[in-house]
């Protein structure tokens, strides 16, 4: 029997939707392998998490709140390790978010178990978990098999689809997260938001990105307007970031963010391999570029060969009409 634990990330009480994507996928795997799906919540509201976790397919929710309201790697790492030692899940799934990428290896080192980062697919094959992840900037996929139980696996946001199975709220069990033994040294003094209300790149359903083709910082507004009309996140190529037109937190690519939205719209971006590294797992890719030979068209599903200064305003207007 293989029990899969899914880490439910919350910040200020808001849950990351990657948790429901992972629970939905874990439920399929658990049904096939004869196990249960458990949510693991640190801090936050157990009742709210249990309702959503149950709806997406979790059987149980393990919750610990003591001193865990705000993330720090020492407290959270100790808590997740304590959970694994007592409940012995076979597999632990954590969203490959800023928090998850920190927590996964921290807990794995405490447990001496395998940790695999940023997976896009997961199966149970030949009696073992097989984890697929892109390497070399997405130019290659590798299938990795962990040799320990538990194994911790980071899952790229949007790799799986959240499915509302309509299940009842998961039964909540409180657990001792071992906080009595930790005095954290690295303390988060303050959290500062850089861009209030902005849709976050790594978890957006739609991303609109601008490249050097936008010509100057004043024209990035064309990207932002289309993004706003689509309720999308706004990204950029490195050329735009290095020119100082937007903050580096917008950069998509090998040395920027990895995104996997349903729709990625690349505007005035040539499609360099390092840019593709960050967005080639997008489900639908649209390229808007005046050069028909631009490499971006090789990965795009739909393309418009044209001047973005003419195409974008018209596209924004059309989208607004469609979306009311």
């Amino acid at each position: 029997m293989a029990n899969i634990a899914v880490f439910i990330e919350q910040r200020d009480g808001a849950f990351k939707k990657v948790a429901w994507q992972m629970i939905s996928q874990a439920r399929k795997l658990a049904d096939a392998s004869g196990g249960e799906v458990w949510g693991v919540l640190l801090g936050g509201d157990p009742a709210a998490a249990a309702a959503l976790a149950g709806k997406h397919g979790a059987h149980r929710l393990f919750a610990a709140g003591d001193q865990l309201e705000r993330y720090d790697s020492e407290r959270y790492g100790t808590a997740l390790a304590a959970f694994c030692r007592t409940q012995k899940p076979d597999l632990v799934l954590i969203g490959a978010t800023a928090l998850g990428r920190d927590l996964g290896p921290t807990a794995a080192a405490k447990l001496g178990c395998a940790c695999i980062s940023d997976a896009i697919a997961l199966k149970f094959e030949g009696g073992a978990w097989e984890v697929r992840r892109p390497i070399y900037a997405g130019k290659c996929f590798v299938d990795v098999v962990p040799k320990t139980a538990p194994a911790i696996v980071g899952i790229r946001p949007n790799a799986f689809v959240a499915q509302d199975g309509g299940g009842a709220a998961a039964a909540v069990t409180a657990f001792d997260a071992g906080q009595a033994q930790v005095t954290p040294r690295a303390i988060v003094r303050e959290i500062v938001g850089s861009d209030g209300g902005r849709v976050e790149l790594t978890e957006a359903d739609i991303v609109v990105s601008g490249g050097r083709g936008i010509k100057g910082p004043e024209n990035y507004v064309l990207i932002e307007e289309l993004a706003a009309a689509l309720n999308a996140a706004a990204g950029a190529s490195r050329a735009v970031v290095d020119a100082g037109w937007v903050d580096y937190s917008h950069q998509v690519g090998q040395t920027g963010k990895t995104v996997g939205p349903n729709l990625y719209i690349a505007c005035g971006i040539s499609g360099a391999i390092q840019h593709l590294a960050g967005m080639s797992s997008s489900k639908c890719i649209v390229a808007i570029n005046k050069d028909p030979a631009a490499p971006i068209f090789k990965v795009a599903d739909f393309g418009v060969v044209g001047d973005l200064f003419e195409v974008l305003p018209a596209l924004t207007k059309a989208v607004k009409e469609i979306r009311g």
Partner: protein
Amino acid sequence: MKIAVCVKQVPDSETRINLAAPAAKLDQTGFTRVLNPYDAYAVEEAVRIKEARGGEITAITVGPETVKETLKKDCLAVGCDKAIIINDPALAGADEAAIAEVLAAALKQGGYDLILFGIKAIDDDSGQIGILVAEKLGLPHVATITKLELGEGTLTAHREIEGGKEIVDCPLPAVLTCQKGLNEPRLPSLPNIMKAGMKPMQVVTCADLGLTPPASLVEIRQYSPPPARGTCRLVTGDDAAAAARELARVLNEEAKVI
């Protein structure tokens, strides 16, 4: 202040990966190798700290002897004082846990106040090593930093999170992983590359570190090419505006993505 910077030599990002059939091994002959771009931020930050308060910087890597050129040009020539290469055939194909174990053993011998890493290597893209090493050494870590201020025996770092940043206070010694935005790495000058040849570079094995080569916790089953994407459908119209309207219609009605 004693600073260690852990670096990796990686295939440059233009490298072509040829995988005709599913393979359990990757043919790496012919790869051009460079310093991992994220590690350049770690090296630069170490050099800036040394310039501001003095100290000594040791660059440490696990890899074959071919890493010497990269260490010389991108670490020693820009301000690191010495380099340690852990070269052991038993580590070929080692996973993150094993590499972290080896690095931790080497770092333990140095008594460093600050240990810097890049957030991830651009070849295997895993982003775990710095954090694993911190845990193995029992040190606090701050990952994905974009700003660093050092106090007396403490540091304050800005760490990138979704839509914002965390401001973290941490005592030394500590482990940090460096992200774009932290600084602008300098380029080595030719005279400095020449001079770097005189700086000490030590090659050690696991046995020299008093270590049996650690076992990997994962196994690679196979490498495969990413799935091919379909051909691009060009959407057209009488003019750019008409093409844009048609694109919106196709995305809405056919692809159903908006």
